[in-house]
């Protein structure tokens, strides 16, 4: 019994901190099987690829992305060798959509913004996989996230959004959300080679 207790303590000391909700830097789905099925109930499978800006075009591509984004990519956490994950959703052999996520710096912590997109690039669904904010609940509310359904990269580029900040004191997080979603759609457009047009 004493042996078991000491082992438990060691596991506690060494292993417990890993229980925190930290995830990998390249924003992957927490549970791809469940998440894909939830947003694409008719799906029968999915393919996953991890792509970096470095391998798809390097500095030149980063400049293109920054131009479209209208902002510079943060050198430490948005460097060109960060791997971005793309899930191509399948029904049999047919591609029926995509899921892709990005990390975005929020006011109080990193956000993980996940998009499900249709073949033509329109947003089918959006949700926060992770968010830290006193007003996180307002942002994660379906009523807010559903407002992005049907939008496309073009809407973000032209600023034709017409979506109000759901928070009272977290306008930085609202701005970060819009930036993160725009970045997500730009990366989807620039990095995924097999994307159906």
């Amino acid at each position, binding site marked *: 019994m004493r042996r078991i207790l000491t082992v438990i*303590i060691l596991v506690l000391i060494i292993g417990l*901190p890993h229980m925190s909700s930290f995830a990998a830097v390249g924003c992957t789905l927490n549970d791809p099987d469940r998440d894909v099925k939830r947003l694409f109930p008719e799906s029968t499978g999915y393919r996953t690829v991890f792509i970096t800006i470095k391998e798809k075009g390097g500095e030149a591509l980063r400049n293109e992305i920054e131009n479209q984004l209208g902002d510079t990519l943060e050198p430490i956490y948005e460097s060109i060798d960060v791997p971005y994950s793309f899930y191509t959703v399948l029904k049999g052999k047919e591609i029926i959509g995509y899921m892709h996520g990005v990390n975005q710096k929020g006011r109080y912590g990193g956000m993980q913004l996940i998009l499900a997109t249709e073949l033509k690039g329109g947003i089918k669904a959006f*949700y926060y996989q992770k968010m830290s904010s006193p007003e996180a609940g307002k942002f994660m509310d379906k009523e807010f996230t559903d407002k992005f359904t049907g939008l496309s990269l073009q809407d973000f580029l032209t600023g034709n959004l017409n979506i109000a900040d759901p928070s009272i004191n977290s306008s930085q997080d609202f701005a970060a959300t819009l930036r993160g979603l725009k970045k997500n759609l730009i990366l989807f457009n620039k990095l995924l080679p097999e994307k159906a047009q």
Partner: protein
Amino acid sequence: MKALSVAYKNLKRKKIRTVLTIVGVGVAVAVLVSLFGFDAGYQRSLNNDIDKLGYHILVTAKGCPYEAATLMLKGGGGLRYMEDDVYKRILNDSRIDKIAPQLVASVYNQEGQGGRGAFALYMGIEKTYLYLKPWSEFKSGGWFSGPDSDEAIMGYEAAEVEQRLVGDQIFVPGINKVLTVKGIFQRTGTQDDGIIFIPLSTAQNIFELPGKLTGIGIKLKNIQDMAQFEEDLYNVPGIQVISLAQVRGTILNLVGSARAMANSIALIAIFIAIISVTNTILMSVFERTREIGVMKALGASAADIFKIIWMETILICIFGGIFGVAVAMFGSSAVEYIIRQTLPYAPTGKLVLIKPALLALSFLATVVMGLIAGTYPALRASLMKPVEAIRSGE
């Protein structure tokens, strides 16, 4: 040289049988190398993990392991805490080199994991924590500005995931507290990389645990004092004392049982490989009885025949050894993955450590195995009488 050439040609005559035997030997060698590699790697990783904790003794509240197990298994809160009187009581013990009180607190984040909820962990520390871990260096920023400041120091990975820089804010869910990032540690390769540290007093205040601690890490001036020091602490009510040397020994003992079983399996695999090689060569000898008789009739000595047959066995074992060593080297990642999935506790770092010396030793052992396995068939072939051999082979 001629014997080697003849032996090689003989093996080529029965390609499938030769290849299968080589694969059998190779698998046995690969198992052997992987097991010894695991033995070395596991011990080194475990020692490394424990050494990087920085202390010899950990004092915790009694009952803590049960609560910890609950926390780990069910994801619930409720760690047991002890009064910091214990810390004050032992602080000035002359045998102590360094001592660091800690308070671990978990808070439930309703919005964690995409709204499914998750626990986040925070550790309250004093500067003495750094004395126990002299290898901890700041990547940016520095220590808290005061013992009660609303500040945080983030481990490397924690900062990476939260995308925090010095001066940014972090939000502690559940208690609605905002802290400012004062420093970010360099990567250490330990659990500290994923932790958010806050001043001990701040932790006691914001988590409403005044005067409480979850643990006290102690490093002694002289390791020889450990037994007596532990003995003295047993008299303090409400706490339990864990020596990390004892924990290390306990884990190695537990893993040792599994290791003993695995080693037995490896020995059986080697035994089977020897039998298999002996059987293959013996079959080959029986099939070539007439041929051996003719060779002897034409003037080949018993020593010549012995050399040829022995050489065949050794060649099989050499090729098997090369194949096994290659499989072990390139398959070590897969073995490590399987071990990590199987073991209840696997330390960080490389679990299967394959050094060149181990590879060389295993290869040498395979050649020796070939020498042993080939002795009987070679002896049997060399002692054949030419006339009887030619007659019985007809």
